[in-house]
């Protein structure tokens, strides 16, 4: 399940963007160092394969619903961690741009959730350890299932944490967790089975493909453990900062303004006009503040006042939409006319 822009706050989105970008830089350097110039086209084409494979559905036994391959673990098995991570990231990027699936700001979260866990945890620490150098079908199935389940549990945990930290959805943490984890347990098992089937097919048809992936040196100079430790520290830090951030001040822009000007509120502008406007905004916002108390005994006059402000909000909103569309229509006409002339 993808994180979406609509649910993410700038702070959370930005933090995970930074994490994802750093990892991409690291993995790109690794792949470059590999000196296997076959790898770059291979990664690209396998990324495209994930799209093609996702168009083919199967029936999940005993449920009647259908599913498709996710592909993260499969890519890790075929390409090794670094290359797989990059490939997953690019698949997600295309989804974000072309299908607006997830979104641009949430892209960092998604790359983190769906890339880091399969490539750097599930594959090297679980799948590889369990299968070893002896890819018999039964071992492979078991290893794939466990690896896929672990990757997806982490991934969905990531979605839950990011959503709750962002504070756009008000789903309580525990409820959300109880909703997401069991669903992803099922998805993980299916993903594992499917991955194992595809891998064993390849093993029969072209064993050398898998062997070359298995022969790959373990992650060389930067050992995987320290990489993971870094991830862990980074995630904890991000988490800590964010939770403080969310509880203190839900509004990113106000926060950053406060940061910049060193005052806890919007800058008390020296200009009177500005001051006035700021007040105005505070008083007339449709729903002026996040922390607006909604106690029972709202006085009738308060309600009436609020009615007034919300009315003006609705009216203004309507006018805004009309104006936007009119501008659009006008520009469209004009550019069409210009084309005609040309």
């Amino acid at each position, binding site marked *: *399940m993808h994180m979406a*822009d*609509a649910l993410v706050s700038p702070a959370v989105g930005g933090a995970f963007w930074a994490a994802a970008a750093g990892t*991409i*830089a690291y993995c*790109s350097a690794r*792949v*470059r160092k590999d000196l296997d*110039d*076959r790898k770059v086209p291979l*990664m*690209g*084409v*396998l990324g*495209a394969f994930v799209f*093609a*494979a996702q*168009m083919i559905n*199967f*029936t999940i*036994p005993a449920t009647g619903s259908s599913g498709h391959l996710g592909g993260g673990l499969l890519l890790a098995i075929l390409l090794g961690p670094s290359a797989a991570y990059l*490939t997953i*990231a690019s698949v997600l*990027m*295309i989804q*974000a*741009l072309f*299908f*607006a699936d997830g979104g*641009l*700001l949430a892209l960092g979260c998604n790359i983190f959730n769906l890339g880091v866990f399969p490539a750097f945890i599930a594959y090297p620490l679980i799948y590889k350890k369990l299968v070893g150098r002896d890819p018999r079908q039964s071992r492979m199935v078991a290893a794939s299932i466990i690896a896929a389940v672990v990757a997806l549990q982490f991934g969905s945990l990531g979605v839950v944490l990011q959503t709750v930290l962002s*504070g*756009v959805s*008000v*789903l309580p943490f525990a409820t959300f967790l109880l909703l997401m984890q069991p669903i992803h347990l099922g998805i993980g098992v299916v993903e594992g089975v*499917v991955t*194992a*089937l*595809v891998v064993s*097919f390849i093993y029969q*048809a072209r064993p050398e493909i898998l062997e070359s992936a298995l022969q790959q040196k373990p992650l060389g100079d930067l050992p995987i453990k320290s990489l993971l430790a870094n991830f862990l520290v980074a995630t904890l830090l991000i988490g800590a900062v964010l939770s403080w951030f969310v509880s203190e001040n839900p509004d990113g822009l106000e926060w950053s303004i406060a940061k910049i000007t060193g005052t806890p509120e919007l800058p008390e502008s020296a200009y009177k006009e500005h001051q006035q406007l700021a*007040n105005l905004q505070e008083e*007339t*916002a*449709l729903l002026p*503040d*996040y922390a607006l108390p*909604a106690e029972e005994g709202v006085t009738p006059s308060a309600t009436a006042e609020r009615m007034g402000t919300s009315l*003006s*909000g*609705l009216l*203004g*909103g309507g*006018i*805004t*939409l009309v104006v936007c569309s009119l*501008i659009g229509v*006008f*520009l*469209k006409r004009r550019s069409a006319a210009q084309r005609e002339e040309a």
Partner: protein
Amino acid sequence: MLAIDGSFLDFKQLDLLALRQTPVHRLDPRAKVLTTFCFIVCVVSFDRYQISAMLPFMIYPAVLMAVGDLPFGYILRKIMIVIPFALLIGLFNPVFDRQVLMQIGSLDIWGGWISCLSILIRAILTASAAIILVAITGFPSICEALEKLKMPQTFAVQLLFLYRYIFVLTDEGVRTARARQLRTFGKRGLGIRHFGSLVGHLLLRTWERAERIHMAMLARGFAGEVHSSRRPSHFGRTEVLFMAGWITLFILLRIFNAPQLLGGLFTGTMP
């Protein structure tokens, strides 16, 4: 199956839109990427109960669609596809957040409903920004822009390969799925074992194709590095104006609730 053909074609069409020649298409891609990003950050930085203040942001997609000569219905359809997920999570808000924030007549409006609507508007705004970015820039140019903004080359190049072969491989995927479907006689879905073999075949073909592509690259002197053939694009005055104009507008709209001011003029609640 037809639905899949359909959504894949959508993909092709979005790509075709990027071939048009309009003033916004001609801008340096970096300007468009950065502006889009600012737009999204501003939109998502509103607090969860905000609705009216977000509406003016519609101006950005509206203007770009008009100037970029993009078909409105098509973009709208693409946006509709994304909304369900955000809404799925958003719909929990009315369940958990029942504080009454507003009354219309005798109707209590819970905070949850407001924040749910807010999520919906965010989804529409951010999704339209992303799709319009692709439609007026084209994926390869976006990659190029990101590369100039310091995205590692390895990543950029494999991204381009991915993009290039999506068209070829999804075609292959569709044909395979089609061949299978024609022999299943209305039986829905595919047993999981068959699925493994079918996708395995597809993977095998993909792998062989990758080998042939590599072969073709070597035959043309490839030695590990893809050289950019792009004539140096320049970030000129138009680009600066485009970015500065929009970003200023976004910040102003972010700070001042324009609809509220506008509505105030009419209802007389101006202080």
